[in-house]
């Protein structure tokens, strides 16, 4: 059986590389793309490679490589996949080109919502939004007669009930792996308490009342979480859900589809999505909105840019979306919001709405600092006030070195 399957797999992969059937035209200019490697990008890259002459690099090191690769002349890649976090260095160095004329030429199917405009010029075309929102085990909450929590206080109250009932190992999961993930949790929570990350003079405003509350709220959750939560990233939380170990988590929308994957999940069909919990009454959901999209390099010829953008539009068309409907919350026409995307949509359309993750140089610096300084607070080595002071100091050092503070 094995040999036959191997041969079959080989045959399929050979066919895959030479088929142009699904593409409406044949691409003749060689195009290269560098992007992150998650499901949605795989879908888009596959759709683009059907047109031929296309090489995609879906790389977890893309954040390290992208700024330098786009600065080379000629740029090493024609297309780049970015999010509102990673577009910053490209925008700052002006290594990506305005797309207005290309959108006018090929973008008939794009909705205005997709066009990322900086000072009126289209600099990127978004294909999907992503956000962290509440996922919960509907069966457990229904059994224990708990209403869907809408605030973090309710989440913790529900968690306490679930813990008493003892139906799962840990009531709550969280993406609190120290570093980027943990910092992101703070960046979700802090604006939820009405805090401003930066003051006008570029110093950080986290050392404030809202900062204290955000830290304390994060720590309050630890009582309901796996003691190893400081190593848990999204994949780990996703697995805990799939194995029925946790009942609730504030998790990325792009992870929703995996919950119903029969091959991996022991709880398929039992998980529902709701808006991200609010941190304080009347506040916005404590989360940030993200988009992912494509940019075109500046350091390439106009003809190449033309071909690259045409190809990208082919990859981001409604055929691709229909084939991969649940892989993301697509912004592309043809997307059918299913039950899995309800939570993300409720989050994004909440009033007041959560902020978009800020694409600024300072945010990058602060994010790193948060990721390095908060663990000491959660492990109990340092209290909240001292942690906020440490964050402020470390940010100031980093910002002075990067030239954003004098």
């Amino acid at each position, binding site marked *: 059986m094995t040999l036959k399957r191997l041969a079959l797999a080989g045959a*399929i992969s050979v066919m895959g590389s030479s088929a142009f059937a699904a593409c409406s035209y044949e691409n003749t200019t060689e195009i290269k793309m560098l992007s992150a*490697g998650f499901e949605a990008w795989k879908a888009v890259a596959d759709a683009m490679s059907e047109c031929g002459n296309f090489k995609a690099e879906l790389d977890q*090191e893309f954040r*390290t490589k992208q700024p330098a690769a786009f600065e080379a002349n000629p740029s*090493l890649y024609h297309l780049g996949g970015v999010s509102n976090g990673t577009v910053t260095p490209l925008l700052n160095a002006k290594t990506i080109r305005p797309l207005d004329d290309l959108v006018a030429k090929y973008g008939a199917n794009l909705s205005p919502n997709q066009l990322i405009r900086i000072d009126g010029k289209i600099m990127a075309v978004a294909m999907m939004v992503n956000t962290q929102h509440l996922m919960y085990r509907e069966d457990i909450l229904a059994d224990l007669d708990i209403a869907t929590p809408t605030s973090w206080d309710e989440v913790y109250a529900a968690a306490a009930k679930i813990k008493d009932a003892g139906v799962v190992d840990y009531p709550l999961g969280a993406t609190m792996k120290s570093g980027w993930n943990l910092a992101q949790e703070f960046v979700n929570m802090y604006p939820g308490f009405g805090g401003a990350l930066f003051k006008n003079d570029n110093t950080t405003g986290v050392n404030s009342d809202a900062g204290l509350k955000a830290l304390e709220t994060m720590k309050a959750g630890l009582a309901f979480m796996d003691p190893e939560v400081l190593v848990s990233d999204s994949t780990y939380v996703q697995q805990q859900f799939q194995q029925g170990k946790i009942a609730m988590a504030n998790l990325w929308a792009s992870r929703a589809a995996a919950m119903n994957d029969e091959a*991996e999940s022991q709880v398929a069909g039992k998980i529902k999505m709701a808006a991200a919990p609010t941190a304080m009454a009347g506040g916005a959901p404590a989360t940030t909105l993200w988009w992912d999209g494509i940019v075109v390099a500046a350091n390439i010829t106009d003809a190449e840019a033309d071909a690259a953008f045409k190809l990208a539009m082919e990859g981001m068309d409604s055929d691709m979306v229909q084939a991969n409907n649940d892989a993301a919350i697509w912004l592309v026409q043809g997307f059918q919001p299913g039950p899995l995307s309800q939570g993300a949509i409720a989050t994004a359309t909440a009033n007041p709405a959560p902020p978009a993750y800020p694409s600024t140089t300072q945010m990058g610096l602060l994010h790193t600092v948060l990721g390095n300084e908060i663990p000491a607070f959660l492990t109990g080595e340092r209290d909240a006030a001292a942690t906020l002071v440490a964050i402020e100091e470390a940010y100031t050092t980093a910002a002075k070195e990067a030239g954003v503070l004098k």
Partner: protein
Amino acid sequence: MSNTSKAMRQSLALRLSSNAFLLFWCIVAAFPILWIAVMSVKSPVDAFAQSPMDVIFGPNTLARGDGLSVIDIALGLIVLFFAIRWMFTRLPTWVARYSTGSGRVIGWLLGATAYALVFLLVFFGLLPLVLAPLNALTGVLGEPVLGLTTQHYVAVWGENEFYRNFMNSMLVTAGVVTISLTVGTLAGYGLARSESDLAFWLLILALIFRALPHSVLVAGYLPWFINSAEILRPIFGDLSPTLYGQPWAVIAVLVAINQPFTIWMLRSFFQNIPAELDEAARVDGCSHFQAFRRVIMPVMWPGVITTGLFSFLLGYNDFLVTSLLLDAQNQTMVPAIAGYFNRETTTTDQVEAVAAAVSITAPLFLLVMVFQRQIVSGLTAGAVKG
């Protein structure tokens, strides 16, 4: 030590405890590796199951119709037993029969590869063909009892085209070993035969280089590699290459990083070859290079093979340099596997990564089996006299 004298004979207690310790160590050494091998043939639910029994027997995998019957297991184990036995008995005799002298290394490599291929064909090609009707005939004994699936291997090698990464790894590793040894033997010999203080300080400097954290160097290369076409244009014109993504550029980096260790080991080895040998050749009118080629080269192989093995491990196992400096088309296996674990992965991706991880360990197995004797004899001959 076959002619151990009476006084050297060991007491029973000592023998027992010594062997018990050895057994314990072997379990500790092999268990994690065996365990990931078991994980790689289970469905994602079983692979990350809590109970070890579930991981071993794979009820979920079995429920999905992939499994082995008692007969499968029995016959498989028999074939495996003889395969391993012959590897240590027949294979060496065959290699000894068909290759001689310096061709021995090539003979071993070819022999081992051929052996591995035949084994794969028999085990995964012939055996299932024989077993399918046998299982159907024998009723209860033919019922699957042990969950096992090869789907992850098929996915990795088929759909994900892992063989490309395999070829890239082979290219990089072969390049690193050959260049590293060529350059290193010359330098090692030079250092061993020179008594100047310069040679000593060169050696110390090399050692300090070896102690450097690689990340510091590697992060420094990236901008140069990406912009090399622009930087080199004034010198080479339009022929100037972009080094980023080029396997040979990565080979050069790895060779350089590996040089300190290589020359250190080879120097110790050459010091153990009596200097009278090449001095005699020099008296006969040979230059240093001729003496090196005629007198030293024939006797240096044990040391070179041992050092080469360390170079192989470095090139094959490297993650830092290859992940940063190679693009997707030239990606080697280790960063490709790490790619399965990036920010957005699924449990299936992880089990596929485990399958890939087990696959890349196989060539290392083969290599150690082939060169085990040479490592020990090379080290004994003094490659590491400090």
